[in-house]
């Protein structure tokens, strides 16, 4: 206390204020946990939204990315005796694709599968596989051309990508997306 005995005028002193007014007693880890929790929840919500829209967002991924993925995951070494058949299919596909005005940056790669399934499918990166079983059922080159036109249409409209997106939505984060999209058979 600072008081000069014969002084008039106001009292002059410094009183200590209460603690905790300008600072916080709350444990910093509590705030940290709350903020981390809120961030994780926001992230989860955002991921859920992206996952939900994957079906529509996946086709926006450039085709070149699909091709890169296909090279890694879909392509497999071909037996030499099948190479000639794949090449023949590729010739027909090239003619059909030219008629369908497939964009310049998209191309299809044909593959022959010796399984006796009666089916054909389009998968990532413009890869189209035709099974031996289906080829046996086709009776003319025009029929083959129609089949290939159907598959090329899937590729052009990016159905494969949105299919991946759709499966991503269904098995979100837990199942790997299925890569093949078997098409309905031509029968």
């Amino acid at each position, binding site marked *: 206390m600072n008081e000069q005995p014969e002084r008039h005028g*106001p*009292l*002059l*002193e*410094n*009183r*200590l*204020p*209460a603690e905790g*007014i*300008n600072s916080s007693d709350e444990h910093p880890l509590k705030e940290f946990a709350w903020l981390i929790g809120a961030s994780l929840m926001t992230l989860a919500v955002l991921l859920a939204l992206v996952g939900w829209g994957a079906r529509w967002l996946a086709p926006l991924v450039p085709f070149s990315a699909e091709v890169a993925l296909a090279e890694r995951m879909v392509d497999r070494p071909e037996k030499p005796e099948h190479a000639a058949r794949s090449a023949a299919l590729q010739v027909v596909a090239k003619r059909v694709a030219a008629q369908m005005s497939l964009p310049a940056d998209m191309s299809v790669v044909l593959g022959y599968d010796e399984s006796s399934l009666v089916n054909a499918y389009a998968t990532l990166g413009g890869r189209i596989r035709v099974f031996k079983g289906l080829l046996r059922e086709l009776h003319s080159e025009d029929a083959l051309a129609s089949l290939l036109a159907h598959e090329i249409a899937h590729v052009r409209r990016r159905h494969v990508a949105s299919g991946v997106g759709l499966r991503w939505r269904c098995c979100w984060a837990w199942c790997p997306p299925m890569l093949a999209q078997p098409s309905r058979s031509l029968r």
Partner: protein
Amino acid sequence: MLVSNLETAPGHRVVAHLGVAQGSTVRAKHVGRDFLAGLKNIVGGELKAYTELMQEARDEAVQRMTDEARSMGANAVLNLRFVTTSITTGAAEILAYGSAVTIEKV
């Protein structure tokens, strides 16, 4: 509680000076408002979100200052002053300080 930036309180007499009462707060707006303010930077003009932020921060700082003054036993704060500092981008500290005094009517 009377809060003034004058040296004296009109119609009152200072009986005791009890020290300097301080109130401060550091606040930020959330990232959504930051983003909108960033867009506003293109056209210029008042950033309403930040004006609001600073106003809230100032009110809170003055509130804390009066809380401190009350805890010192004062019933008024004179010589109010504000100090503003930017701590990080998007966060500002407002400090309000003044004399914690006891006044009585003359």
